[in-house]
């Protein structure tokens, strides 16, 4: 049936149901509860199926968004899953942690009316339906094996996506992961309440179901170098090692007991399950008054973990103002609702310790904003004589991360930048080294899950073209 050309456009975006802020600040269950069938149908029906499909171009992996939404509206969930997964190997992850507001939803035709389709929420709905209806999955039909072998280093979003696509092209793929669990930042970094680990595990299992072999406990560069992999029979290598090295402030007191990098804080909490100590063996210091330094998603995650671990007060200390915060708006809102205290335009000068070497306070400057800097954001400037002291007993530093040099330092012929990132072609992910590709945070520096996935996907296509041309 033809749609009426002037059908009334529904501008009421269906809200995502959330756990009550008071309750959720004390548990690790997922904060966003997901759409019900009725909510998904209502939201999917708002999509006007415009012919320009700007959302597809806004997605780093070019999911056919209008098609999967149409399938949801038509209640054809098997088709919705098929469309979604044909482009995105990790939809349950992306539906939860992608910054849709700056990607597909930002360019949605209805965004002009401040009511973009909630693409991320619908994506999550479809992916969760799939996880709950695995019996209805049509088995992925793989092409006959090409006989080519590819080593993928790192099992984060870039590596998993690259591996899945290469497997779908018929190549034999081995993924090497340094930690004892596959998933990279999805496992060690993003907390359970934002991305349940069983969801990540299901996505990893799906990639494995494509015939991908995942080798855990394998620190490449140490256990074997890239050259050794190439000599041992791999036809190509993809580096998806991420940006795992924490940055510190380089201020006095940073080595005091009770000062954590966000990486350590989150790894102990999420990967090692320190929130279940002593049932789990890994401990974490539970601060009463915790300061998290930084304004990104990792800072929000750390602050919300601190709250759940049992802190009385948790501060976000950020040197610019609310407007410049790089964290997703939704996460800032969630953090605020849960009671995180935002200390904006504040920058630490030093961390003060007691006589036993423990953090007892943090001295900060007040800041003001000057002219825009290279990032386009207004530069924070110290207000002279504005020092003040905050009583805190745990400090978490969430200032960003840089790539781990382990691979670059053990691989001859790779080009790296001053920031430690590996140089690779933006489109293909090809590095200057023969038969070696790279993508994700190791190339761009710390960025998003979906951009890493996009890079993994493009590299897989380029590797496939290379292998088939051989």
């Amino acid at each position, binding site marked *: 049936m033809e749609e009426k050309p002037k059908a009334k456009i529904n501008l009421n975006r269906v809200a995502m149901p959330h756990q009550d802020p008071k309750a959720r600040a004390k548990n690790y269950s997922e904060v966003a509860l997901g759409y019900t069938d009725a909510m998904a149908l209502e939201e999917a029906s708002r999509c006007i199926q415009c012919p320009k499909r700007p959302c597809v171009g806004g997605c780093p992996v070019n999911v056919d968004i209008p098609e999967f939404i149409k399938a949801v509206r038509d209640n054809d969930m098997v088709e919705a899953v098929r469309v979604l997964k044909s482009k995105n190997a990790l939809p349950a992850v992306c539906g939860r942690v992608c910054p849709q507001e700056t990607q597909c939803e930002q360019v949605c035709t209805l965004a002009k009316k401040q009511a973009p389709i909630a693409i991320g929420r619908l994506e999550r709905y479809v992916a969760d339906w799939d996880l709950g209806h695995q019996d209805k999955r049509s088995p992925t039909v793989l092409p006959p094996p090409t006989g080519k072998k590819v080593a993928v280093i790192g099992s984060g979003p870039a590596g998993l996506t690259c591996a899945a696509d290469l497997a779908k092209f018929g190549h034999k793929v081995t993924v090497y992961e*340094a930690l004892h669990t596959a998933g990279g930042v999805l496992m060690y970094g993003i907390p359970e309440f934002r991305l349940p680990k069983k969801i990540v595990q299901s996505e990893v299992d799906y990639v494995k179901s494509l015939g991908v072999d995942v080798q855990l406990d394998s620190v490449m560069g140490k256990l074997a170098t890239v050259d050794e992999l190439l000599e041992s029979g791999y036809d190509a290598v993809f580096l998806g090692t991420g940006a795992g090295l924490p940055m510190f402030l380089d201020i006095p007191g940073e080595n005091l007991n009770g000062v954590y990098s966000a990486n350590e804080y989150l790894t102990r909490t999420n990967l090692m399950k320190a929130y279940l100590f002593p049932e789990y063996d890994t401990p974490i210091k539970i601060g009463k008054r915790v300061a998290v330094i930084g304004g990104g998603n990792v800072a929000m995650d750390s602050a919300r973990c601190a709250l759940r671990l049992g802190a009385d007060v948790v501060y976000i200390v950020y040197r610019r103002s609310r407007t410049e915060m790089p964290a997703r708006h939704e996460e800032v809102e969630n953090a605020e609702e849960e009671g995180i205290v935002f200390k904006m335009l504040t920058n630490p000068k030093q961390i003060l310790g007691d006589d036993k070497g423990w953090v007892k306070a943090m001295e900060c400057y007040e800041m003001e904003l000057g002219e825009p800097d290279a990032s386009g954001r207004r530069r924070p400037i110290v207000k002279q004589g504005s020092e003040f002291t905050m009583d805190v007993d745990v400090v978490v530093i969430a200032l960003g991360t840089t790539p781990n040099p382990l691979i670059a330092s053990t691989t001859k012929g790779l080009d790296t930048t001053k920031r430690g990132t590996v140089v690779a072609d933006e489109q293909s992910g090809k590095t200057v080294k023969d038969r070696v590709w790279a993508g994700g945070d190791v190339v761009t520096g710390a960025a998003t899950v979906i951009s890493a996935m996009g890079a993994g996907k493009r590299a897989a296509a380029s590797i496939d073209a290379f292998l088939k041309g051989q």
Partner: protein
Amino acid sequence: MYKILSKEKLTPVIDCLKVEAPAIAKKARAGQFVIIRIDEVGERVPLTLADWDAAAGTITLVAMEIGASTCKLGGLQTGGSILNLVGPLGLPSEIEKFGTVVCVGGGVGIAPVHPIARSLRQAGNKVISIIGARNKDLLFWEDKMRLVSDELIVTTDDGSYARKGLVTEPLKEILEREKVARVVAIGPAIMMKFCSLTTKPFNVPTVVSLNSIMVDGTGMCGCCRLSVGGQTRFACVDGPEFDGHQVDWDIVFDRQKVYLKEEKEALDRWKECQCQKS
């Protein structure tokens, strides 16, 4: 799963495990370490390699039963397994012909000193080793150390065996007696600090191996950070060996104590579980 091919007690509280790990054994070099996670609820524990056999595909780990994890490790038996084992991590020891090298091993630190002494001897150095422990019951591998040393001195703090006293005393005597090109000291942090203080007036380069608290062991968390020559360094990727004269020891001591309370809680809980079992 990594199979335990043999397990023996070197002393009542020090365990030696030979574990099947062919890929690690092939790459291992003196001074490097591995990280183990015993079971699903386990923490990640760094252990410096005590030995390895590339041909047999095995590595040897030695650990002292101090906390819950090392006690759990001590409870494992031949035929059992360790859930996760990753390595070889860290930078290998610098091995070249220096001349005369003194290798000092204190307590459980005797284990990692052994392969370093062996490699240094193979590189043509004259190796004088000093091994020490609090008492006779904590001493092990005297025979193995003798095999890789030109001279071996054994001490116990309480005099229950061999020479009474601390390892720093014979160390000082050797430095006064002959020209020493390098000292390698591995053991409790306090011992490494005092070995470094002993060699300082003689201006002899002194290498210490820091077994800091770690999580990932690949440079990701920064838990093992320390200050060396005024710069923040990570024991896992920049070490574990550092210039003992440059290490800020106070930070090392403080950071070792971060989880004292939790470690005690875990150990008490482990002991309680053992009592309930028996």
